[in-house]
């Protein structure tokens, strides 16, 4: 169940190895989190999250590779059956890939968009159905500013997030007011996934994103930016003439 302060007792993470999701879960663990289901393709990274959260939360790992989107439904059923209710679901699954390598490969493009858009959308649909029938629930979808304005340097990842972001916003309308769905748009997050890249301006951390996410969730918002200033930066950016914006290096 969800308590009066918005804290869930049960959490499912799709993309269970995600560092941002782990940072969110760490905050929830201090506020009564009891059961954590981590679903993802790599057991080691999920086990690391489980160990980081510690034994106060009862954690179970579920194997799920969103490259096979049709597997999402059954895995979510299993996780929900184990937990009883799906109080809060965090959809964090994504691969960053390597833009220059992947952009010329039809196969890799297909895999990237499957994992970053099709799979999460399938998973979200299964979660949404459950939340509708159980009568309450919170859903957090990790999107990205990369999906706000798709850029040359990471258009494959950006296009994937753009699709997911749009899907999630539509789903939020479907679920309203039965359940709250929050789309989180972080900027450049320093994490394992981005360790090999030069940080973009306004870079942030998983912990900061986690804080901003919960603040927005509890305030009942549909979209969260992290850091918050990105909302205004992107608003300006979106309205620049394309000829100008494409030359701004970030």
């Amino acid at each position: 169940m969800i308590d009066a302060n918005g804290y869930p007792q049960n959490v499912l993470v799709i993309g269970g190895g995600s560092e941002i999701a782990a940072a969110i879960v760490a905050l929830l663990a201090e506020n009564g989190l009891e059961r954590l289901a981590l679903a993802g393709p790599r057991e080691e990274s999920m086990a690391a999250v489980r160990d980081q959260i510690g034994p106060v939360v009862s954690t179970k790992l579920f194997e799920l590779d969103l490259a096979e989107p049709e597997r999402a439904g059954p895995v979510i059923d299993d996780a929900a059956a184990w937990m009883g209710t799906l109080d809060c679901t965090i959809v964090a699954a994504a691969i960053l890939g390597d833009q220059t390598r992947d952009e010329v490969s039809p196969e890799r493009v297909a895999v990237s968009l499957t994992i970053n858009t099709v799979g999460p959308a399938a998973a979200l649909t299964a979660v949404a159905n459950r939340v509708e029938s159980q009568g309450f629930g919170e859903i957090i979808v990790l999107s990205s500013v990369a999906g706000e304005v798709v850029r040359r340097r990471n258009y494959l990842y950006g296009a994937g997030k753009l699709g997911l972001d749009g899907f999630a916003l539509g789903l939020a309308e479907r679920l309203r007011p039965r359940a709250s769905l929050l789309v989180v748009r972080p900027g450049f997050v320093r994490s394992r996934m981005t360790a090999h890249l030069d940080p973009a301006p306004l870079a942030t951390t998983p912990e900061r994103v986690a804080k901003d996410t919960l603040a927005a969730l509890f305030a009942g918002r549909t979209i969260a930016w992290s850091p918050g200033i990105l909302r205004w930066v992107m608003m300006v950016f979106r309205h620049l003439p394309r000829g100008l914006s494409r030359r701004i290096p970030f």
Partner: protein
Amino acid sequence: MTQQLSGWGKTPASFPAKLIQPTSDQEILEVLSGPLRTAPRGLGRSYGDAAQIAAGLVLDLTRLKPTFELDEKTGLLTVSAGYSLGEILERTLPRGWFIPVTPGTRFVTVGGAVASDVHGKNHHRDGSFSMHLSNLELLTPSGAMTLTSSDPAFAATAGGMGLTGVVSKITVKLLAVETSLIRAVTVPTRSLAETFEAMTRDDEYTYAVAWIDATATGSRLGRGLASFGEHAKIDELFGRTIDQPLAYHPKAVATIPVSAPSQLLNPLTVRLFNSAWFQAGAARCGEKITSLDGFFYPLDAVGSWNRLYGRRGFLQYQVVVPYGSEELIETIIGRLAAGGHPSFLSVLKRFGEQSMGLLSFPKPGWTLALDIPAKRPGLGELLRDFDRRVAAAGGRVYLAKDGRLDPELLETMYPNLRKFEEICHNLDPEGIMATDLARRLRIGGRH
């Protein structure tokens, strides 16, 4: 699609699969024989998730009103559970009978008053609501039964948060009064020590409660207005003669609209309100004759005042701690104020003996109730810490106000929990009776 349900604090909220408003016992018994998890609901004045069940069936009992029988000689009232205390007063007070125990609002049903085993300003003398019942009728999945206070099922139902079944009718002994007015005395206090001190004189009065300015800090922490009262006798009206000493015409003076700005209550306005209230009260101290509503139900003058908190909602943190743990009261008030969680409305009083109710809240000691905006950063952690200290001190959190207690602490706070669950299981082997609160706190049943 059914409507979203929550308690008075607006959080947590959930959607039932179905909501029905039965008007007869028969209808209720039929529902209870079905497979759906079922939660009784009165006027929704509990603050958290006690009167709702996500994806289940909610029985709104506010139309269950087949019986209203007052014996004018003895003051014994047999009344259906759907009547509100206000509706009862409107009929019995003009005949000289008052409800023996009343909470701070008249908008609660008889069923809700039993299920929460409510207390009033006279608890130190007269105990809780269930202690004034001669019997009650309970509808359970295994049938209807009439219970008296020596029955284990009665003890489970009094304070049992709707989990033993549906209370359909009670017989309660009313209190004889001469007027509908209250002789009230207000004493301002300048510190928590003074407030405690003033309240220990409560045995001179039937009614006693202290309002606390929970935004005052430092040496003023815990300052407030101790208020005491008695039902005024005819010859105590200070020479005023009154045509109808028992007249009672409650009315709301205002209602907060749905569209109220969401931040009307913020740390600044809460502090301003509390200071102003304290100053005004201190200026008007002394003895006076006041209306019954002004004394018992000041908040009822403003309809839907819970909307002032905006869409995040609010919660009430009410605890009781045994005598000797006064410093815990100070810690709670002080740390909430310091943490930027000012309480709009804060009340302190003493409890007397506890009732037979297995999950009944009141026990001897101090009770503190604080209204706090919910879902603010840091609040969850702070209250969890208080919970642990309260449990360790032998105190407890009031379930009728709760939406966030750590389930691990429940049995420490309510040592009769297992016995309660056993009785529930006997009355309801399939676990039909269920609420979001019970699921959250894992009380009995098939959660």
